């Protein structure tokens, strides 16, 4: 009894001829694409009876054999035909019992020759009958297709197919994989094929020597998938093979633990560099000047919004400069945030020197005003800041996955830190700043304009917060609350590292970053953060002036 076809199409007469013509043209173009020049093509004459056999096969066993015969030709044309079969698009035209490919386009159904791609005319609702498939057939088609794609002329397609087979690790694929491996010329693809073959061979009943070789291959691969397969083999029984697999799995496991730790260190360094960027400006104003600037986070936020504005202008007026947007935003953010800092110092903070608690309250008030001002101008929602092309993407280092954005931020934080250290050490301004910090009255007597140094120092701290904002705009949401989320962490870094010591800030930032990331897998992100906060609270009890406390007279200066 023939199965009922379910072609939900209207009669062909309803379709205008013009539309049909365009459609045919498109299909012909498509077919030409499919049939483009390719290697290792079997003769059409050889293929045609094999395709016809798909239609004449009775019962699923026969169909599976027909599929195997078609796949065995290794012809690239076979793959789309088998896929169509799996999707139910390969049908038998009732009129001449020919196997055709059907394509639906809107209301029309068209029969196509599966080999040449030539259109064979329209099909009515009941003109064709599906070749029935079940899940077993679909699996067979998938396996056959994978074997076919192993011969694809495109190396990337071959590698992807091999990787797919590695995941499936079907023992029946061992033979086609071995054959493909022998023919493979590309060493990278060959390596993947070898791994897939090893995975397949371990599931099969191949001789012990082959299995041991396969275990060695998987051990060399050394990732979590390989370990899973090896662990499965190790649990399968006793003997030389399971023992070797267990040993290999254990060695991968310990290697993976090292990689995991390395990954955590990397994440920690990445977080630490963000903390360093946010805290370093604070270390100047808090550490060097003794001023508590609760509006520091808002300076970071202003830097991020400067980036946003720069990108908006570039988008509308000079899109080709987009990759340069961060380089343009950096000096602008520094100048803008630094300028705001100087204004704040001259109008408010200078009246409050020597009264740190009042400074804290006044700058908190300022932070509220700046936040609300940004909210009024730009709205409360997150703003989209794009990543330039050189900031996106990632690369693999062993089992580590490192994104370029994070890498650049680590580099950037270190560069900013080094530049600041050099400026403090070797520029006249740095000299004056250190002089004022160490002995204000003496510096003043020597002719240093201390109020000017104060203003510039505060401006410098704020400006660095601004360029931190440029970096943070790449990895965090740019919203009016951006600064709030960093202010407490930044204070923790400065207090932990030791006030008045930039090296302390560096060590403090990276320590807290790494500790935080190591705690996360065990305690979860939130609990890990709570632990860090409690740790710092306890640490302050032990060393009230931080990790690298200033000693001697400098403390009282």
């Amino acid at each position, binding site marked *: 009894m023939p199965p009922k076809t379910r072609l939900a199409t209207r009669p062909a007469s309803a379709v205008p001829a013009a539309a049909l013509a365009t459609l045919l043209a498109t299909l012909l173009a498509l077919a030409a694409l499919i049939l483009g020049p390719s290697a290792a093509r079997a003769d059409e004459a050889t293929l045609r009876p094999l395709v016809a056999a798909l239609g004449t096969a009775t019962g699923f066993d026969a169909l599976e054999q027909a599929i195997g015969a078609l796949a065995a030709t290794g012809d690239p044309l076979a793959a789309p035909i088998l896929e169509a079969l799996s999707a139910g698009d390969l049908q038998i035209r009732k009129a001449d019992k020919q196997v055709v490919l059907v394509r639906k386009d809107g209301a029309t159904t068209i029969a196509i020759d599966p080999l040449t791609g030539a259109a064979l005319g329209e099909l009515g609702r009941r003109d064709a009958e599906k070749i029935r498939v079940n899940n077993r057939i679909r699996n067979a088609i998938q396996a056959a297709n994978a074997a076919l794609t192993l011969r694809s002329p495109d190396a990337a397609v071959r590698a992807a197919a091999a990787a797919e087979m590695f995941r499936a690790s079907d023992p029946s694929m061992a033979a086609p994989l071995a054959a493909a491996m022998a023919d493979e010329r590309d060493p990278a693809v060959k390596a993947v094929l070898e791994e897939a073959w090893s995975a397949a061979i371990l599931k099969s009943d191949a001789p012990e020597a082959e299995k041991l070789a396969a275990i060695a291959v998987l051990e060399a691969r050394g990732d979590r998938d390989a370990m899973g397969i090896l662990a499965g083999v190790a649990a399968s029984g006793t003997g030389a093979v399971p023992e070797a697999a267990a040993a290999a799995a254990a060695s991968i496991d310990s290697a993976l633990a090292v990689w995991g730790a390395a990954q955590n260190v990397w994440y920690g360094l990445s977080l630490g560099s963000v903390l360093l960027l946010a805290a370093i400006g604070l270390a100047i104003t808090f550490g060097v000047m003794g001023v508590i600037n609760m509006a520091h986070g808002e300076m970071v936020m202003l830097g991020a919004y400067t980036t946003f504005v720069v990108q908006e202008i570039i988008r509308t007026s000079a899109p080709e400069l987009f990759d340069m947007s961060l380089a343009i935003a950096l000096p602008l953010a520094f100048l803008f945030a630094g300028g705001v800092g100087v204004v704040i110092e001259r109008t408010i903070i200078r009246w409050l020197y020597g009264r740190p*608690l009042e400074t804290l309250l006044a700058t908190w008030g300022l932070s509220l005003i700046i936040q*609300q001002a940004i909210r009024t101008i730009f709205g409360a929602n997150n703003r989209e800041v794009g990543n330039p092309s050189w900031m996106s993407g990632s690369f693999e280092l062993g089992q580590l996955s490192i994104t370029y954005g994070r890498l650049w931020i680590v580099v950037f934080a270190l560069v900013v830190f080094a530049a600041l250290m050099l400026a403090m050490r070797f520029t006249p301004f740095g000299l004056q700043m250190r002089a004022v910090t160490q002995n204000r009255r003496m510096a003043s007597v020597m002719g240093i304009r201390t109020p000017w140094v104060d203003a510039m120092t505060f401006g410098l701290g704020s400006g660095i917060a601004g360029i931190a904002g440029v970096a943070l705009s790449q990895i965090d949401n740019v919203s009016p609350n951006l600064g709030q989320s960093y202010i407490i962490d930044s204070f923790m870094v400065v207090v932990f590292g030791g006030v008045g010591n930039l090296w302390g800030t560096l060590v403090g930032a990276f320590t807290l970053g790494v500790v935080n990331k190591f705690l996360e897998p065990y305690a979860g992100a939130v609990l890990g953060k709570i632990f860090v906060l409690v740790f710092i609270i306890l640490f302050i009890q032990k060393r009230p002036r931080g990790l690298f406390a200033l000693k001697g007279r400098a403390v009282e200066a």
Partner: protein
Amino acid sequence: MITRRLLGDGGILVLVAVLLAAAVLVPLANLAMPEGSALHIGTSSVQLFGKYLAYAMLALSVDLVWGYCGILSLGHGAFFALGGYAMGMYLMRQIGARGVYANPVLPDFMVFLNWPELPWYWYGFDQFWVAAIAIVAVPGLLAFVFGWFAFRSRVTGVYLSIITQAMTFALLLAFFRNDMGFGGNNGLTDFKDIWGFNIQSAETRSGLFAATALMLAGALLVCRFVTRSKLGKVLVAIRDAESRTRFIGYRVEHYKLFVWTLSAVMAGIAGALYVPQVGIINPSEFSPANSIEAVIWVAVGGRGTLIGPVIGAVLVNAGKTYFTGALPEYWLFALGGLFVFVTLFLPKGIVGLVRSRAGRKSEVAGGIAGGVAADEASAAAEAGVAAKPQAAE
């Protein structure tokens, strides 16, 4: 002279009397006066005033440590919220089977999270006396442990401020977690009864207002007693010259620990009074911004006075109510401006301003002198923690 007397030390007793009168008259005006009468006070206003008074009590507790002992806490909101949570737990248990899931024991959020049974720390909270102990003990214990560590190792000034802020931030993160068993993000809400009275009814609202006014009056009297005692004098000495007080032979950390714990308990009680009036407690009460806002109430009113924080809390919150209703965009500008303005121009707050004006007048008349000079001296002494560049010049 009248203003001076009102805002001076004698003013506390006047304020206490006003609070006692309000505790009687406001409920009367709400319940006995017919609606539409000029003397009628709406239930929502009673609730609002009650909230202000709870805030005033929080401000008073901040002032006790900041104004009298020089400890600027940026984490008093944590004690306030802990007291509030203890009260909220009692109120949650009072809901009983009337919750959405009608579970007689488990609060709704626990049913929602598939908790099989009540966690141990929720036991007993169906009894008010257990909750009452928790309201006092939990903030008190936290403050005691925290203060014991902090004062013993002489963490002072801005360092202390920053770690108190870290403390409340850590608690904020902790209470956001569902695993904590305090309702996570949503906190505790949908209360029905308190002591068997419907929490929404006008009578209960008036009762809660009266209770808050009485508690605030009591807190004022306690603070007055503490600050006027010998211990209070030592506290002021610690504020003005901590090292010198220590060298004279006082165990500075003991005094600090006492006043710090007392202040935390007061803040906890304030929180417990606050929660039934607003009908919700959630982790945002722990946010550092709330604690800093409480500090500004004290600064506006005048720290180092007992009457100042009450005035400041009521004024600033009345302003907040007005602004968030009429000009929501500008509230943060106003609040931020207030922070800057008060620190720059009103270092002693409203009460300090009135007092120094009155002082100047009486100075001309041959009365007490040097009020302003004393103010400046104490301000300078407070600064002793970090570098004071400008002052040294």
